[in-house]
């Protein structure tokens, strides 16, 4: 992250519309109502790491902070959390974590597979730190318990909203990488447990057999006027 040297007047904006935040120990006055991300930019930081979608989807901007009145460490996504007066901020854009390499085609979706690939699962002490920190309000400990039981479908469902921000892994005393366990479970569920779409297989056969080629040949050669007539006059629309 590149930052231009702080100017002395930074601390001057006063009044109700500004709050003080601390970024890596330095104080800045920033307009209240900004998200942490926008406030840091206002303060002069240009993000290189720790910023991606700016919309709560990519998990690049996990941020740990404290407020003056409490000993508690709080967390949030920098692009979604609004600054508070006295906030001490630390971004954790990248947290080291292990991921197993596998060929999903070869894996068996049995009750042992998650624990076999991620044996540290068994070390969970049910402290619930992971759930408490998750900015997506996921019951993380719940899906880790399901993983220990080997209930892949449950893990897949419960972890679905995970944006892989890594905050849970940063707090886990058992050094579990929750989000990679969830990801594996979802891939196993999608590939092996959910029934395959029959209509899809059938359509692939038809395409292979060239069933749509004559129709597409005709359409691709059509003039704009002909296409327009088909589109505006003959196209029927499936009811809601």
């Amino acid at each position: 992250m590149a930052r231009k040297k702080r100017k002395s007047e930074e601390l001057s904006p006063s009044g109700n519309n500004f709050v003080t935040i601390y970024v890596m120990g330095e104080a800045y006055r920033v307009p209240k109502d900004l998200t942490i991300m926008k406030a840091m930019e206002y303060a002069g930081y240009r993000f290189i790491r720790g910023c991606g979608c700016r919309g709560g989807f990519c998990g690049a901007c996990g941020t740990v902070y404290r407020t003056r009145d409490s000993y508690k460490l709080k967390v949030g996504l920098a692009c979604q959390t609004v600054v508070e007066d006295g906030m001490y901020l630390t971004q954790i854009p990248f947290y080291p974590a292990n991921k197993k390499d596998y060929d999903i085609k070869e894996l068996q979706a049995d009750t042992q597979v998650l624990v076999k690939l991620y044996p540290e699962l068994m070390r969970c002490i049910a402290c619930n730190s992971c759930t408490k920190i998750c900015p997506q309000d996921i019951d993380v400990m719940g899906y880790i318990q399901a993983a220990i039981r080997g209930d892949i479908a449950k893990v897949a469902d419960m972890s679905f909203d995970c944006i892989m921000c890594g905050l849970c892994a940063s707090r886990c005393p058992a050094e579990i990488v929750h989000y990679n366990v969830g990801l594996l479970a979802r891939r196993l569920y999608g590939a092996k447990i959910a029934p395959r779409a029959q209509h899809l297989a059938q359509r692939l056969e038809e395409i292979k057999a060239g069933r749509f080629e004559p129709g597409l040949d005709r359409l691709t050669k059509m003039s704009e006027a002909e296409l327009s007539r088909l589109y505006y006059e003959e196209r029927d629309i499936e009811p809601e």
Partner: protein
Amino acid sequence: MYPESMQESIRRLEATREERIKQGKIPLLDAEAKKALLKSFHPDYIETSMRALAVGPNKGERTPHEIADCLEAWPIVDPKRFDPDNPKFTVDVLVIGGGGAGVAAALMAQEHGASVILTTKLRLGDANTMMAQGGIQAADKENDSPERHYLDVLGGGHFKNIPELARALVTDAPGVIAWLEELGVMFDKTQDGTMITIHGGGTSRKRMHACRDYTGAEIMRTLRDEFKSRGIPALEFCAAVELLTDDEGACAGAAFVNLDTNELFTIRAKTTILATGGCGRLHIQGFPCTNHYGATADGLVLAYRAGAKLIFMDTIQYHPTGVAYPEQIVGQLITEKVRGLGAHLVNAFGNRFIYELESRDITASAIIRECTERKNGVVTPTGRVGVWLDTPLIELLKGEGAVKKNLPAMYHQFARFGIYMDKEPILTYPTQHYQNGGILINEVGETGVKNLYAAGEVAGGIHGRNRLMGNSLLDILVFGRRAGRSAAEKAQMLSVDKGAGFKHLIKFQAELRAAKVPKERRSPILLPEYRRPELQTPFAFVNR
């Protein structure tokens, strides 16, 4: 929490709800009415928003000033500072961009026997693909067909699409869905495995496949996991700033900057695939945008300098429903799925003014008309205007809990600001969303520059002058896969022994000089500038 001024309007909206439900679907506009609406209200039709390009392969063609400023610009790094004779890596296939198109291309290139390296400006997967919520189209149901899909694509694109590209798109679509299913993407399905599909704007059949409202995230994280499992090398936080060309003008790799260390280096490759996504962060005409942080049109710039022709660069997609309140998330996307589920678009007086599932350009224009000419918009405390999306209606139509169940990501996003969309409507206004045009490609992703491929949002021609929802996630995978396969096969027939460097830049710079382009104007942009003006400094590696 809405301020009292806005709550008053909400009460009016609630008062018309019963009647609106009875009203049902309102009629679609006919071709003439559509044309008139677009001409008067679509941002693309504002004459002064664009200019004709003064240099390069598209000289004389019009494009928004913000894009023209990137295309008519000098390199950010002096090419002499690179040493192309001592590349950091030499590979068969170089993939630039770590979104859906890039990762799909890399997977396919590797499967087809090529050595591959992927480079990306942010983290792998920090890309527009991660943000797509609504869904991905494919004609795989009984009552549907690739021909129907084709006609919808062409109608959406105002019949200007390149037919062969649209045909490739619809023909490969079911195969792409099957590929994703095999890789473990969790599509919404019924008990027996049937895909749950819904309408999107402009579709004649319910062919939108979704993974709750995390469709892009689910696809991206699966592809990324597969990519990592296969051990394909990737360089993150490395931005391409120029292409390399050989004596014959063919692409021979690219030049990069490591954004963390400012190291400058080159990668030599037999074939190169540009998958750098779109241009949302240029904020065309001052619109807010839905895009990720790195969407700054870099790929267009690189390809253009090397001599690739662009197409449809005078059309940008404004998503009809961006967030207009609260201020913190202005511009972010409210997925079309919200309207697909039945939410009405309603003005300040509680009235509907357009059929909700018209194509995007039409709906966006209608909202702009409602807020500007007709002055029927809702004004926010910061002076923005917008119209309501009546989301509590979804609960009435689809049952209690339907909002939370079908739109968990959206629900969450608003709840963070104390707005509960199952109980209150949300305020919306068009936002810059998608680059309809791009680098002209053929059916296998080849550009006008030899050995240079393009796939994904950076490429153009597939969607004509307007893209329909769900066809982009599809296109990045269709053409990412095609480009990956083709680039790998082509690489097997090439060697890397010819000279490579920046000859193309000499010619391009001569044009810039002749056109008197100011020296301070530099590109690619790489990252948008959101610091206060007095705190802005250029990247350390930029020549001054």
